[in-house]
């Protein structure tokens, strides 16, 4: 059974978003996604200050099996990228909601997200 955290919102493409309430957000991939992808071996993140349009591929996570693109959930600007993933991409497997976060960004609004209960239903 995949872990789903109540304090986050979710995309249909299995990313989680944590809203800090000040126009900044943290983003990562869900437990369900990391389990499907398998052992992570490489992560390519956008650079700090990059401006990204909604739905653009702005990160790539690669597991032993496959490369998977992460799409922007909104028009956004990167304020921090998780550099620890350069040397330890496996943090996404061991701690996808905490140490394995991908990027922090700012955005005017992030819409069309699911709450935890709704996301859980999509996994059934």
């Amino acid at each position, binding site marked *: 059974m995949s872990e789903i955290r109540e304090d986050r919102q979710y995309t249909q493409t299995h990313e989680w978003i944590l809203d800090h309430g000040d126009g900044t957000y943290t983003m990562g991939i869900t437990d369900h996604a990391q389990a499907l992808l*398998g*052992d992570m*071996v*490489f992560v*390519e993140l956008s650079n700090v200050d990059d401006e990204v349009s909604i739905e653009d591929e702005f990160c*790539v996570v*690669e597991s*032993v*099996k496959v*490369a998977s693109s992460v799409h922007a959930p909104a028009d956004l600007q990167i304020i921090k990228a998780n550099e620890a993933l350069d040397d330890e991409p*496996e943090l996404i*497997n061991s701690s996808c909601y905490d140490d394995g976060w991908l990027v922090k960004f700012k955005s005017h609004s992030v819409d069309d997200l699911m709450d935890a209960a709704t996301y859980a239903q999509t996994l059934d």
Partner: protein
Amino acid sequence: MKQTPLYQMHIESQGKMVDFVGWEMPLNYGSQIEEHHQVRRDAGMFDVSHMSVVDFKGAEAKAFLQVLIANDVDKLKTQGKALYSCMLNKSGGVVDDLIVYYQNDEYYRMVINAGTTEKDMVWINVQANGFDVSVERMSDLAMIAVQGPNARAKVFTAMPGLEEVCGELKPFNAASLGGLFIARTGYTGEDGFEIMLPSSSVKFTWQMLLEAGVKPCGLGARDTLRLEAGMSLYGSEMSDEVSPLEAALTWTVDLVNENRAFIGRDALEALKEKGVERTIVGLVLEGKGVIRDHQKVITSLSEGEITSGIFSPTMGKAIALASVPRGSTGKCEIEIRKKQVCAKIVKPPFVRNGKVLV
């Protein structure tokens, strides 16, 4: 989907089951990378019961195999001795790659790939026409590959009595004990055994191996281990359209005996005459990223293609086998998601017996 006799054991070990050429097989049991390291550092086991064992018996078994496959079974003189070979079509393309074990001049045992079994059996039976040989697929045999530096010791712990028969067995040789057929062969670049045994007893043996500390490993680790070991995979490095001369498998083609008219020989000799244009090389990525199958390779000579690309757990780098213009050396570029990333051309294997060689 078809299941091996070990299916229930995989489920009990939390195997993540996937469709592999029509067989429901474990991709991993949690972490593919841990399973990989387990084989390089200690001992792991693979269920390879989906592969097929084929016995050739009869007065003309030897003569038939000398025609059927590109390597020469005349090299095999002692009981249990193994030989790796390709079986070719008339154009010199590879129908399958295989291992053949010698029992005597009238009895050979062959192991062929799972995904090609039906095609192979049709091909073999057609070619066997006119030879005094019986071809029998041993559907009742299961197979476990136990691999790693501690594999043999752990097999001897798990299977009492085996050490007396197999303790002195040399690499690429096999021995029989009752219904067991034990070969010191593998597909990982590590020492170990491939054990063929009756389906009815395979669960018990698997359980004994688990209790001796041998960890189950899935198809994912099997692929990264064989690629690090520089071993070809049928369908990736060679196929019906690619000859062994173009796949760095020239060493498996025996042209010494001029009178041996094996299938595909004429085509190979014509290709040699004309000049072989491609070969398989190893690549080590120097930049960041992961190499994947079918990515484009640009060498100093021309373009090539990745045939198998992985992230090597032992080296901590992306590595690959690639089909490139013959004579390509030095550096090359690999096109990864529209970017060109530099790689070094090397001669496989990348890793053998736990040591990085490139």
